[in-house]
């Protein structure tokens, strides 16, 4: 393509900028597949990711809906929620385990879902990489912080 002469021809002639010898650049499709596209990678990471979305989804239906029911509907709705309510629930290992599993599954499920979305929409490899790094950092931080709180929660704190 002889695109360098564009400005020269365009300046004197405002009827048309492009002609037979000087065609306009084509709009390439995002991340075109070519002969140089890397061949298949080994490993089953994507398969496990796909399976995990479905399996964690099934468990999340019970965990999340149960959580919403307890927090927002039963026994007076939101108005009952307070420090004492949380302290009361986390006194039982059952609810500790419930919240821990829900935290881990929801975070990993949500993070993997966002990873999919980033893979879909980030056009440039650089953007893709940094968005994913941001995502992983936020995920690790939230999961660790949440886990820490569940295990070290002190009902007598002042």
């Amino acid at each position, binding site marked *: 393509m002889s695109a360098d002469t564009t400005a020269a021809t365009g300046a004197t002639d405002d009827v048309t900028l492009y002609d037979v010898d000087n065609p306009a*650049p084509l709009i390439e499709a995002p991340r075109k*597949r070519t002969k140089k596209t890397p061949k298949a990678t*080994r490993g089953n990471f*994507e398969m496990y990711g796909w399976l995990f979305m479905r399996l964690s989804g099934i468990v999340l239906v019970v965990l999340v809906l149960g959580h919403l029911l307890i927090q927002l509907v039963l026994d007076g709705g939101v108005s009952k929620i307070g420090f004492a309510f949380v302290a009361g629930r986390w006194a039982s290992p059952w609810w500790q385990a419930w919240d821990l599993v829900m935290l881990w599954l929801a975070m990993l499920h949500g993070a993997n879902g966002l990873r999919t979305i980033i893979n879909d929409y980030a056009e440039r490899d650089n953007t893709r990489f940094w968005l994913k790094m941001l995502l992983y950092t936020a995920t690790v931080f939230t999961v660790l912080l949440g886990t820490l709180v569940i295990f070290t929660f002190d009902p007598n704190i002042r």
Partner: protein
Amino acid sequence: MATPVMDKVEAAAAASPYITATFRIRRFNPEISDESTWEDFQVEIDPKERVLDALHKIKWELDGSLTFRRSCAHGICGSDAMRINGKNRLACKTLIKDINPEKPITVEAIKGLTVLKDLVVDMEPFFQAYRDVMPFLVTEGNEPTRERLQSPEDRERFDDTTKCILCAACTSSCPVFWNDGQYFGPAAIVNAHRFIFDSRDEAGEQRLEILNDRDGVWRCRTTFNCTDACPRGIEVTKAIQEVKRALITRRF
């Protein structure tokens, strides 16, 4: 008896089959502009004719510069997939009466591939994905002296995916492919399916491994756009799910 005949002739003349339909075509010519524009054409045409006939009429009688691909004109070669009224179809299999000619009919190039001119796109990335799944029979050992026999049941297993004509209607209707051309796309998976489930073929494992890739079947989000688009009525999404299932059952 003379009167009824007269009536018939008159009625036939009054009810001419021709209508005036507007075709709104997305034109792109890099030798004129770097932008594409919609151009309207009024065509006198029998609504029982096809969109391809209207395109011919425009090219031959109104504007010879209109550019599109077609070869067989009978839904077999797969060259004239285009986006008609926002849906991917073959121009040669779409009757004008079926797509409401009262309103302007929009015709544009299929999405996700580079437009070269008017309705012609660069199909190379599409065929590269096709080549990458090894769409040919792979066997080991000596060649038999007679045909490779197969039971009707074994043939039936992959019958649906043998019908593909590589028109790219499915791949260019897939939102994952629109955003990322590295994805193999439905058509490549359909053509891998055709060999993976062929009892005579011995490279199924290899093809499964290729589609187990980052850009393989796991990127499919089950939107069913491909199944809706396929002019051959192939259950494309189902074929993709069968490949996914084969990958999972192979491991466990």
